[in-house]
């Protein structure tokens, strides 16, 4: 294989992954999606490190990626428990709910215009009702379709 071309292509893919993760972290408002974006940035770094490891015929890059994976697991545990706490207090995943923590003198982010939610029943076909209602057993009447 053409080793320099391989390294170059992998570095470009790693850079793309990092930039896309940065984009998601900067722009998305859902805390979980922001966290996915962080993981994606680390994934880009891992791709680059593995490419360098292959190029230099040396395991040190891969060792670093193993450490990165372990640190990512730690980070996932702690960040998700923090998110759980924040969700318990604010009952949504919006990071803008916590914007009172912003620096002094910063303008608040206000939602002037919120797009309409998509209709959850919009795409379902409408069937004409037919037949008779099935006869329910007495113990079936207590069933709930969702909790």
């Amino acid at each position, binding site marked *: *294989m*053409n*080793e320099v071309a*391989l*390294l170059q*292509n*992998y*570095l*470009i*893919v790693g*850079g*793309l*992954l*990092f930039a896309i*993760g*940065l*984009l*998601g972290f*900067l*722009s*998305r*408002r*859902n805390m*979980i*999606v922001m966290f*996915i*974006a962080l993981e*994606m940035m680390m*994934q880009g770094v*891992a791709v680059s490190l*593995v490419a360098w490891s*292959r190029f*230099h*015929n*040396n*395991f040190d890059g*891969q*060792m670093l*990626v*193993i450490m990165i*994976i*372990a640190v*990512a*697991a*730690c980070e*996932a545990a*702690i960040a*998700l*428990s*923090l*998110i*759980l*706490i924040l969700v318990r207090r604010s009952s*949504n*995943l919006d990071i*803008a709910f916590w914007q009172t923590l912003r620096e002094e003198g910063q303008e608040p982010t206000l*939602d002037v215009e*919120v*797009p309409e*939610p998509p209709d959850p029943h919009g795409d379902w076909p409408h069937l004409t009702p037919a037949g008779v209602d099935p006869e329910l057993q007495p113990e079936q009447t207590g069933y709930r379709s969702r909790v």
Partner: protein
Amino acid sequence: MTLPTWLTIFAALFGLGLWLLLPRRIIAGRSAGAVLVTAALAVLASRMIPPGKESLTTNILFYALAALTVGSAICAMTFRSPVYCAIWFAVSVLATSGLLLIVGAQFLGVAMVVVYAGAIVVMFLFVLMLAQPEGLAFYDRLSFEPMLSSIVAATLVFMLTICLLTPGTLADTAPIDLAKAAGAAGAADGADADQSPAGPIVLGEHHVAAIGQRLFSEHLIAVQVVGVLLFAALVAAAAIAGQGRPMSDSTSAEGAS
């Protein structure tokens, strides 16, 4: 130095496409954004040197996996529903592990699937189900400064690619020959110069065994530190997650007294 025209076109198309794809007040234009991003990635791919010289299979595999990785990453960042984001992230991780397998990192490819796709994505989905059992929330249909962040992302890729393609940076790089360097260092005192193996190390036969040997000899202290770190993170996560729970009767009575 003059900027390459194709790279400027790529960055412009990429930034514009990402801006159109991100959740905004106006929903229209997502398909146009997808077309623009695809065109930008095609421009970039047409300028990449195929990595496999004679092997067509390697080239096809590389381009397919790279396209899947980047495409599903973009989907993971731009879809409105966070559940879809997590699933597209899992797809991206799977494709990345394929890329790692191409380059000869078999252990990492498998570990990536196990840790990311197996554990972290499932944890994401758990938290999502816990926090958001209903459909789309309003904050998933809005984003902070979509234009500025698209510009930042496109500029970052632009500058990184320029750094890679500038003559004299990467094209003239030669691999560091560690065996030779160790031999030169060890020749002075005549010590273990012949212990470092020559030939393919990363692509050698017993890949996982070699990784394990390195991990538990050269990097033993790092492994221990990571173990302590994992334990500390476990304790911290349990302690933090217990904070927000409403107190039980006995503890609240103690606190009140």
